[in-house]
């Protein structure tokens, strides 16, 4: 059931080439990313996994234009990030990237609808009404639009965040442990929406997670260890991912 998605497109939404990120200097030098080269094809749902300190979050932050990198290159669509100034980076994130955070990160002063349209508000654009309606229907928030985040459950808040990421029709959506703060049912819902957005709307999604079940919603799982991509798995299942992770753990312990 997943084959079509992978082969449907050939274009690349984001690409990291020989990407390195080094903290500190000399003796205290820490290599967070070590010449990572990876493509995120359009219309694909990618999960990035790996143990703590493997560099999975750093990879996402660098590709998403949230963090600077030491060497290599990152492209979002046709844009090379390395040469951009802060202002241009900000604009790029605003127009081309959607974000979903672990801690929802909604503005408590805004209603659900206002939160969803916030990126367009910032850009000074009018949201595409039909698209907006479609997104809202998909995440099932039609009757909650006037509510403030504090009046919503955790699952509902994260659905607002998903809708916010989708509403501006970005080229790529990054999720940082989007189900980390949710119970398993709400988590499954949110992951379902993300998968649907890829299947039905042709969205590109990259998600960092440590949960094999969450990863199993993706089309592809990248495994990172010590700042390098060590493996990948197409059409993952939760058990398969778990087994692969266990193998890394065992390897880590013996080495």
């Amino acid at each position, binding site marked *: 059931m997943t084959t079509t998605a992978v082969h449907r497109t050939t274009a690349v939404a984001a690409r990291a080439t020989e990407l390195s990120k080094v903290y500190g200097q000399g003796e205290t030098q820490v290599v967070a990313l070590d010449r990572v080269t990876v493509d995120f094809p359009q219309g694909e749902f990618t999960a990035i996994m790996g143990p703590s300190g493997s560099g999975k979050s750093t990879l996402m*932050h660098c590709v998403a234009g*949230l*963090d600077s990198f030491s060497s290599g290159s990152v492209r979002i669509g046709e844009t090379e990030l390395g040469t951009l100034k*802060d*202002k241009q980076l*900000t*604009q790029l*994130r*605003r*127009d081309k990237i*959607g*974000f979903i*955070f*672990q*801690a929802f*990160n909604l*503005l*408590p*002063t*805004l209603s659900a609808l206002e939160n969803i349209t*916030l*990126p367009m*508000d*910032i*850009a*000074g654009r009018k949201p595409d009404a039909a698209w907006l309606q479609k997104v809202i229907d998909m995440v099932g928030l039609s009757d909650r639009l006037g509510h403030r985040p504090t009046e919503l459950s955790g699952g509902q808040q994260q659905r607002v965040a998903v809708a*916010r990421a989708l509403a501006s029709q970005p080229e790529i959506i990054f999720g*940082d442990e989007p189900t980390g*703060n949710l119970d398993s049912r709400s988590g499954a819902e949110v992951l379902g929406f993300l998968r649907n957005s890829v299947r039905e709307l042709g969205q590109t999604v990259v998600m960092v997670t440590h949960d094999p079940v969450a990863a199993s919603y993706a089309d592809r799982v990248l495994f990172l260890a010590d700042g390098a991509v060590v493996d990948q798995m197409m059409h993952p299942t939760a058990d398969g991912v778990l087994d692969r992770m266990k193998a890394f753990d065992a390897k880590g312990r013996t080495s």
Partner: protein
Amino acid sequence: MFRTAVRNVLAHKARLLMTVLAVMLGVAFVSGTLVFTDTLGNAFRNQSTKNYDRVAVAVTTWAERGDEETPAVDEATLAKIRALDGVAEATGRVSGFAGVADPDGKLIGNGWSNTGSNFSPGAGGKDAQYAFTEGTGPVKAGQVALDKETARKGEYRVGDPVRVATNGPVKEYTLSGVFTTEDGAVNAGGSLVLFDTEVAQRLYLRPGQFTDVTVTAAAGASDQRLLDAVKPLLPEAAEARTGAALAAEEAEQTENGLKNLNQLLLAFAAIALFVGVFLIANTFTMLVAQRTKELALMRAVGASRRQVKWAVLSEAGVVGLIASVIGLLLGVGLATGLRSAMGAFGGKIPAGPLVVSPTAVVSAFAVGILITVFAAWLPARRAAKIPPVAAMSSVHAVASTKSLVLRNSVGGVLTLLGSAAIVLGSSQGADGKVVIGVGAFFALTGVIVLIPLLSRPVIALVRPLLRKLFGVSGKLAAQNAVRNPRRTGATASALAIGLTLVTGISVLGVTLGQAVDKTTTDNIRADYMVSMASGDSLDESALAALRKADGVTAASPQRATWLTLGEAGVSASAVTPGEVEKVFALKTVSGSLSSLKDGEMAVDRKTAASHGWKTGDSVPVTFLDDKKETLKVGALYEGNEFLSPVLVSEKVIAPHESLAEIREVWLTMDGGRSAANEQALVDALGDNPAMSIMDRQGIRDMFGGFVNTAMNIMYGLLAMALVIAVLGVVNTLAMSVFERQQEIGMLRAIGLDRRRVKRMIRLEAVVISLFGAVVGVALGMFLGWAIGEALSSSVPEYALVIPWGRIALFLALAGLVGVLASLWPARSGAKLNMLTAIKTE
């Protein structure tokens, strides 16, 4: 416990910075005031003691030139005093006004501190009171000596001709010497001219007579015994006291004067500290909210509510202590600075050591620590109420969402009661002041209590505008501003208090100033008013000279006198008939002012009404010499602020009072006010520096100038409260930025650029500041109106003036305050590291 408190304070250094600054400024104000007044008091006390150090007995007779009835001390009596046992020396003095012209012909000094006296050499040819630094004392008719400072200002050297004006015409003297003296008036910046004794007697009293005598004692003689010996020799009305008694009295007067200064300054310090309370309370509320988990944990492991409360309060105590130490030092510095500043402005203060009394030190610490602990009381109580279970929940510390219902009801009632009292007081005339004061206190308190409630609708009003002008930054700013109504309220309150007072003062000041303006223009037709700079009466020769001056078309003196009409004593103005209506705008109600010429009198309408006099009535009059006559009421006129309520011709008074004091001479001139006309008057008066020639603007400034001065002083004193209010805005914004790090990080991540993050924070500051300012301005105008209404009966030409220009300026300044206050928080907000900000704890 204390150690924990110190550690907590150190851990939150940055967040407590504004609190420390606010308390520090308040403490500096208080201790500065106390040190300054103590130092001043000490210096003046020393001065008094020094002045009377050598004086055993001082005699005053109150005799004056022109007053033949009050006996003075003559040469013979002085000789008798000198001959008394135990008297080392007895010096006779006469004194009065003496103005010195500078080379440009202008008066040196301000008129009321220009004195002249006699040089009274003792056996050695020296006057012990004066130490000559150049030349010698005046011993001939054409000589004078000047105090050093005056000689310096006039650039006079020994041998130079010096023009000196006394109450008669100005005369030229030769400078015989320059001296220094311990005389208090000279030390305070006044000028002193010494004449030869005979000259001084002729100028100020009568030949051969003295108004004052100073007696010094020979070694071993007791002051009291001398006093008892001197007393029987003196004329009846004279007063004699020992030097010690005089010194004590002078010290007491100084003390009282300083006490008033002290109270005024401390009142403004109290306002500043009161404003600071809001800032402190905000800070501790935030610190408690941020440490909810930590405090709950303390409770969970067994700390009692009391202990938690005391933990917070002792932290406040430590903050207060630190701020007090710095504030005290700053206060001492402030007092030193103030003393030299006063010196620089010509108000010379006798030298003396800086006095830091134990009271000042204790007050500094008491004020600093108590204010801080008091302001932290509510937050501490809230901290104690945190349930232990809060330690387990992962919920963020949410701003207290406790219902504001109770608060709003209390605030509403207070505001209504206060406003009602203010309105009531405003209708009660001068008696309403206390009612207004109490009402103002309640209304201000009520509004402060209500401010969180007010913040939502008021700020909601400007939201569409902000949204339209500044897009998403404006929208978010308006929403953030009302996010924590209590905090916004406290911040805005601080500004509101300051602006209430500033606006109230401005409304009153401008209204009164306008009233003075209108009084001047409505009552006066004269182009010029001539009077003595010293406030003494004018010499007859001056009047004669002015009448003859080139271009004078009408001139009338105003001679002040006192008539007993029937039973009632009334002050009256003797004027020149036919001229008086040309120099004053007199509205005749009935009869005609030309009747003044026929020896009839004109009476102010209100005065006439209260006595039941009508035109044509005859009223029995007793003059100052007890002679009786009957005067006919020839005219009634509408009251004039510059004249007494009864007008008579000079000729009516002349037979009874040879020297009815000429207070002023009023003149109209051909061509009105002009430099040439003014010069003609100066020439007619013989270029006399002691004469003040004022045009209408000058008159207005003389009567209304104090209003401006008072207004400026109050603005200056309120500045401290406003500075603290600004610190409060900085504090609130810094706190908000700190609490919303994660949010700001998210906004940055989804595409809000740094510039707009800054703008968002800046606009929030502007919104809060303007909100406080608007509340303050509204309340201030209301208060200004109320006090004005209460005063209106006693202020002629009263009409409320709202100084819109000034108020617009205040609001603009409040907006600027917001921008300035947000500089640092906005920068730190924009510089936030996105990744650390987004990361969950």
